[in-house]
């Protein structure tokens, strides 16, 4: 949870790549970690399959546990790549026979990078390809101000908005969806400013206050006033 730096090829429990397959077919998939090929398999995209999305965990034991080919729908096929156990530099290549249809280091329009930032503070998104940067301000949640449902609204960014916006506020666990393509091929996100430490424990303290306020804790009882009596009579 403390890992706060991401790049467009960082896959982790909190950062994912999404690629929609353009058409049905049988594809080969190659997975690289730190430029080393670690696994290969097949993806069968066909309308015989109902699943419209596949979350492919690039953690090697998970890849090896996959029985047979990956199967996904033909008309709507969204492949999501992530690593459930660590922050890793992965490259994914999908081939239609020998032709590369997808290379994660060269994303195209329609590809997405999805991020789930948890730690409050200021992050700077830098893109060499766009030659621009912007801030992502993850706010410290306030129990009175911020509803959990507010974090359900995704933040959508693309090359245009990244160039236009200086900063974007968001809540922890609020999904950030970065549409790649249109000049946006790469970026890195760095944690550049910490939150105000005085805020730490504010949610827990507020929970205590709410627990107290919702429960009557008498303080003005007169001395020797009996609260409860238990009796035995013979």
């Amino acid at each position, binding site marked *: 949870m403390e890992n706060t730096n991401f790049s467009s090829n960082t896959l982790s429990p909190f950062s994912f790549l999404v690629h929609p397959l353009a058409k049905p077919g049988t594809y080969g998939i190659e997975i690289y970690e730190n430029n080393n090929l670690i696994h290969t398999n097949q993806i069968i995209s066909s309308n015989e399959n109902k699943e419209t999305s596949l979350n492919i965990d690039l953690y090697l034991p998970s890849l090896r546990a996959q029985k047979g080919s990956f199967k996904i729908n033909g008309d709507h096929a969204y492949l999501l790549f992530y690593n459930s156990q660590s922050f890793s530099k992965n490259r994914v290549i999908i081939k239609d026979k020998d032709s590369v249809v997808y290379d994660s280091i060269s994303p195209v329009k329609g590809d997405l990078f999805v991020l*789930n930032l948890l730690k409050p503070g200021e992050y700077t998104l830098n893109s060499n390809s766009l030659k621009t940067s912007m801030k992502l301000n993850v706010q410290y949640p306030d129990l009175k101000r911020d509803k959990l449902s507010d974090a359900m609204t995704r933040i959508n960014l693309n090359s245009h908005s990244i160039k236009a916006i200086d900063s974007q506020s968001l809540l922890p666990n609020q999904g950030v969806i970065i549409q790649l393509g249109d000049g946006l091929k790469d970026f890195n996100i760095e944690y550049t400013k910490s939150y105000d430490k005085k805020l730490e424990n504010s949610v827990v303290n507020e929970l205590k206050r709410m627990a107290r306020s919702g*429960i009557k804790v008498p303080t003005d009882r007169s001395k020797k006033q*009996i609260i409860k009596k238990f009796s035995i009579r013979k």
Partner: protein
Amino acid sequence: MATIQLAVSENSMNKVLDNLINNFHITKSGSSTGNFRASYNVGIRLTGGSVDLKNDPDEIVLKEIDVNWDPLNVTLEIDIPEICLGGFCIFWLPFLGCVARAPKICLFSANPDISIPLNLDGLITSEISGGFNAIIRYKDEPSNNSLNPYQAYAANNMDKWQVFLNSRWLDLDIIDISDTVGNLLDNIVDNLINGIFGGLPGWAKDILSWSLHEINDIIRGILDIGDDIDEWLSDLLGVNFGLFDFILQEVGNYIANSYPLYEISNPFPIIPGANPVLLPINSIRTDVTNDEFVINVDI
């Protein structure tokens, strides 16, 4: 038959009461089931109190004896629902709905048990009062069956007439639950958060607490605190654990069976020493006036 009267004033009875209750000490541990599981470990001692003698009907009232709860430890065990992050919809299409969803990362297995220890020492002030009548018992000491009275006297092993108090009624009054009961809630919240999130940094506990939708409801609902924490605490101890009835039973049994109010040796050494003069006692009777507790000794 002649009768000797021994009269004890109310003031003197207070000293007798001190001896009686100072020897009382019980401990108990156990657990309860219900909406949540809880276990306890409790020790009880008695101090203070006073005697009030009542005539017609005869009754010895022991009033306002302080109950010292030491220790009073309760452990709450709570089931916590699974906490997950992510899982939000990435891509949504008309008619199909969400077609791509972020992986859901569940940080904790479903329904882990959290133990929350609560030290409630000094939190509760309570008193016992009771009305008693005197009962007479004769203790036939089996080890002196082969001895004559003088031998038994020399061996300090004589039969005894004993006066016990038998309870007619006993009340346990919960007088006060400390103002620091608010700290009890803080304690519960802290232990709940730490129990769920363990050694995570403070900001992470805050984020995850905020993300755990029902945490405030958990604190109140699972513990079934309702609106009144006094009520909750006394119900927990009294009803769930049955401690208050237990204490009253134990106090009643102790006073009635374990520790006599008075003992008179039989025969009674009216002149003690190496050559004692022993007076056989046929029976004893008691009487209570508003000022004195009287023991009539029939010789």
